[in-house]
Each structure stands twice: as structure tokens, then as C-alpha cells.
């Protein structure tokens, strides 16, 4: 109980949480559409460069590509991760439970960069290997949290649902999953935060996304490029993360006030 209270204070940001997603989103939009016209401002940072506005692709299209890759990976990871965790917590799949639980926690020690790097020799350059690497790595926190959430459901509650005549499927959908939802959502949040970051590193293996301006900036020694990429991607991460925080708040309040 005290842990829960601590967890809540750990996520508190001080201000009204409703506002944060909107604030980050507005700032993100300002960045995406403002930078092409911010020649003068960027010139201050990098006075000697031939070009200060990143022009190989528009930030908006890079943002869309980044979001596409991350959300494709997120949909696959969430579906497969939750499914795997459900399978191994059923009576007939229980044999696999120890192994899956162990792998889900051990796998998280693998650095995402190393996973990405190892995916390239196996799968080649481009967007597809990145999605595969993101899926492989991103599934782990979801599996782990779903397992934790389902196993955390009180035995008595499950007994009660069985006594009410619920079938296994009904117990799963109406008791176990709703009760585990906050924990599962936390896992999805972790997974997506990691994936936004890892996808950006994917720019080094030939995917074009928001990592591109940063890499181009580092290669050419152009600080202005780096700032455009870094600010946009940081704001994207903050927008998504704060959205999830809102979702978690809402789930929590639904559970603890009713």
C-alpha cells in the first residue's frame, strides 16, 4: 500500500496532469512546423554552416515515419506479449510459465542497441529489421507486466468468479484482465518509451525517421541539425509518455474510487 502511494508520488509532475499532454503536443507541433522558418534562430547556433535548416526531408514526414514504425511495433508487441502471458498462465500452458517469466526478465538486461545491431546481420538494413528488433525487445516488458498483473489477481477473487459459474474465458475477460489492466498499461508505456528511443538509433541502420537529422548533424558537425532532431524527438517522447500517464491516472481513479 505504501509502495503504491510512493509510486503515485513518483509519477506526480507537480502541475495539473491534464495539461501536460496538450502542452507537449503544442510544443511538438511548433517544432515540426516552426523549424523550417527558424533560419535566423538556428543561424545563431551554427553561424558558419552552409545550411542550418534540415532539408533532406521535412520534419513532419520524419515524424510520421517514426510514429508509424513505433506504432506498428507497439500493436504487434502488445498483441503478442499479452497473448503469450495469457497462454502461459492458463492451466494447459502452465508448463511454459517459468521459462517465459525468466526470459522476459533476463531479456531486459540486453541493451536495445545490441539487439538492434544483432538484428541487422540477421535481417539486413532498412525499416523492417528495425520493426522486428523493436517487437522482439518491446514484448519483454509487456509479457513481464502482464504476467505480474494476472498473477497478482487475488486467488479468492478467482475462486469467487468460478463459484459464480463463470467459464475460464469469462474469468479471463471479466476478472483477470480488467484487474491486471493498470499493470499491463504500465508495461506498454515502458515498451513504447524504449521503442521511440531505439527507433531513433535505427536511423544508423538505414531507416529514415527523426534520428536522421541527429545523425546527419553529428556526421557533418552541424549543431543546428542535431537540435532540430533532438528537440522534436524529445517532445514526441514526452507527449506520448504524458498521454500514457493520463491513461494510467484514469484507470486508477476508475478502480480506486468506485
Amino acid at each position, binding site marked *: 500500500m505504501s509502495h503504491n502511494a510512493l509510486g503515485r*508520488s513518483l509519477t506526480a509532475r507537480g502541475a495539473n496532469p491534464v495539461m501536460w499532454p496538450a502542452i507537449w503536443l503544442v510544443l511538438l507541433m511548433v517544432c515540426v512546423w516552426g523549424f523550417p522558418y527558424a533560419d535566423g534562430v538556428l543561424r545563431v547556433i551554427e553561424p558558419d554552416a552552409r545550411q542550418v535548416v534540415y532539408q533532406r526531408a521535412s520534419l513532419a514526414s520524419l515524424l510520421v515515419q517514426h510514429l508509424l514504425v513505433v506504432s506498428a511495433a507497439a500493436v504487434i508487441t502488445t498483441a503478442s506479449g499479452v497473448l503469450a502471458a495469457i497462454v502461459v498462465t492458463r492451466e494447459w500452458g502452465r508448463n*511454459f510459465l517459468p521459462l517465459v517469466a525468466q526470459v522476459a526478465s533476463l531479456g531486459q538486461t540486453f541493451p536495445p542497441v*545490441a539487439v538492434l545491431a544483432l538484428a541487422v546481420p540477421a535481417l539486413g538494413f532498412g525499416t523492417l529489421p528495425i520493426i522486428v528488433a523493436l517487437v522482439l525487445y518491446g514484448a519483454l516488458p509487456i509479457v513481464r507486466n502482464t504476467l505480474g498483473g494476472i498473477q497478482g489477481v487475488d486467488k479468492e477473487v478467482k475462486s469467487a468468479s468460478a463459484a459464480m459459474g463463470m467459464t475460464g474465458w469469462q474469468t479471463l475477460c471479466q476478472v483477470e484482465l480488467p484487474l491486471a489492466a493498470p499493470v499491463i498499461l504500465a508495461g506498454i508505456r515502458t515498451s513504447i518509451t524504449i521503442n521511440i528511443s531505439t527507433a531513433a538509433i535505427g536511423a544508423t541502420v538505414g531507416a529514415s525517421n527523426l534520428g536522421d537529422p541527429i545523425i546527419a*548533424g553529428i556526421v557533418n558537425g552541424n549543431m543546428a541539425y542535431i537540435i532540430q*532532431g533532438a528537440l522534436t524527438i524529445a517532445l514526441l517522447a*514526452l507527449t506520448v509518455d504524458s498521454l500514457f500517464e493520463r491513461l494510467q491516472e484514469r484507470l486508477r481513479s476508475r478502480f480506486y474510487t468506485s
Partner: protein
Amino acid sequence: MALLDALPSPRMSWRQWRPNSVLVVLLSVLLVAVWLFDVVSVSPNRIVSGQGAGLVEAVGWLGALLVSGVILTLVLLSLQPSRQNYQVALVGVCLLLLLMPFGLMVASDRLVSSDAPPARLNMGMAYWLMLSLLFLCWIELRLRLTLPRRWTVLMLLGVAIVWWLCAMWALEALALGQEFRARDDEFWRALRQHISLVSVAVAISIGLGLSLAMLMRRYANFQKVAFGVLNFLQTIPSIALFGLMLGPLAWLAAQWPLLSQLGVSGIGWAPALLALVAYSLLPMVRNTYIALEQVSPETLEAARGMGMRNSQRFWQVRLPLALPVLIEGIRITSVQAIGLTAVAALIGAGGLGAFIFQGLGQAAMDMVLLGALPILILALIADAGLGALSDILRPKNTVPPGEAQ
């Protein structure tokens, strides 16, 4: 009593036979994989992709039958699970792991002609699958046998030593080894850089984290703000934070020549270290805070009753009791820092990540492996080592509160 106990048991009585389906599945996949995919591939030089070779081609009929025989025996053993059979199976899995480098030797003997020195042997799809599936089997067996951690670590160490010896002395043709020998000075330097960057960052964050956690325990308002800021930092993608550190540091170094004499500049170790510490603080502070908070008030009261001063209570009671959770924090922080330092290579901080990004740039996959595999191994070692340390330091809570020691 749980209500379920009163219900009829779902387990049917005629179903006495319960094979270990996990091992059966894993080993069957393994058996299919070694016959279906390329075990090794031979390439004439570094960049050209290789010519694949199947199991029979690589190790001959005798070797292929030996491997399949061992795998089939393991399948049979896992059909009749018992403690004894699991032990035999564990020996079998270790045997296969030990045989794998010798398989490579045989393959290099058969496939790589000695008069073409730049030709190199790559491990193929089936080889990697075999390695990972055997590792999974090994984890499964370990869990079923509930072996203590040090035994399993010793066993893996033994296997690793055999692999290392084979790679060093007998496998000239192996691509990874060739890549290593071509730049071994560079490799050791990168490894040293990597480890020192990680350890300095972790050391700084331990110091900072401890002081921040103490401040938080004193001032509740500070706690809210600090966790907010640290959470915020953690959310920012690593590559963006590394990038954003470049500018301010370059500016600082330009303003104060003393700093640039110390080696601080926009590119290199300084921004990397700053970003690493920024990332390390959240897990560090969070665990330190929880560790210090969870010490039971009764224990502290008892210490006060014994006449301990405040500082004594902190150093002799609170800190030792908090140590396991604190070390758990150091474990999470170190594993994370090992991975992030790889990204830091992008801003010229060196380390093993440099091999990854250089290799990706030159499309030389062996070089990528040369960077990625040691990073993986370092992370696993840090995880296992610090996890074991935290286990050792955890006080045995077997003495009930009534019985004093």
C-alpha cells in the same frame, strides 16, 4: 481455505503421463533447425556474403548423426521427466554446448582450404538458433532442478572458457576471431573505455543518488520536484539527450580554456558522461529512496533503545539493512549504463559501440558482432554479479521477531 479446493479437481486421474512439453518443443525445433538451415557459411573475404553449408556438409555424416543422436536422447529424457532425467539432460545440454566450437573446427577443416588465408567461416542461422535454444533449455532445466545460482554460474563459466580457448588457439578461420585479431589493441582499448565510462558514471550517480535520496527524505516538496525532473530526463530518448549535450559543452569549453585543457569538449567523453549520469539518477535515486524508507521503524526504535546516536543508527543499522535494495538499484543502473554507453559512441565517446556503428557504416557484420556481443556479455555479467551480491547481503529473515539472535 480457498473455495477452489472444495471444487472437483480439474486434473483428470487417467492423465498420469506428463512430459515436459517445454523441453520437447524446444528440442524438436532445434532438431528441425539444424537440418533445415545453414549451420555455417564460408565467404572469400570480409564484405562478400558467404556460401552457406548445411549440417552434413559442415561436419560430415558422423558429426550430423552424433548431434542428432544427442538431441533425440534429450527429447526422450524430457518425455519422462524426473529429477534424475533432468540432471542427465543438463549434462547433455552442456555437452552439446561444449561440442559446438569443435563442430566449428571440423567445419573449418572441411570447408576452408588452407591456401586461401582471407577466407573466413561465419556462423550460420542454425548455429545461432542452436546456441539460443540450448541456452533456453539450460534455463528451463535450471529452473526445474532449482539449482543454486553459483553452480549454474560455474557451469556457464566452464563452457565459456572452453569456447574462449577454442576461439583463441584453434579457430583461425572464424570470422569473428579474424576481426578480433585484426584490431585486438583497439578492442581492449574500447573495452577499457567502455568499462571506465560506465563505472565512473555509476560511481557519480551512487554519490549523487545517495545525497539526493537523503535530501528527499528531509524535504517532501523537494522529493516531488526531483522525481518529476528525473522522470522527465529518463523519458527523453538517449540519442536526443546525447545530441543536446553537445552544444552547451562545446560552448562552455570555448568560454573557459581551463575546461578544454581538462579534455572537456562538445564531442567525446564529457557529454557522454553527463548524459549517462542524468539517465542513471532516476533508477539510482528511486531505489535508494525505497531502500532507506523500507527499514522497519521497530528496528530503528530498538537501535535507539540500545543508546545509538543518530549517525550510528544510520551507518550501523539503516544503511546495512537498506544495502540489498540499494545494490539492486546499482544493478539496474549499471545494466542500463552499459547499453547507453554504446549509443555514446555516436558522439565520439569511444567504447564498444564504436565497433557497432563503424561496422554498420562499412556493412561489415563481423565488426558489428565484435561490438554487440561483448556489450551483451558485459550486461549479463553485471546483472548476474550484482544480483548475486544483493542476494548475499540480504539478511536471512528466518528468525521470527520473538527470537533474538
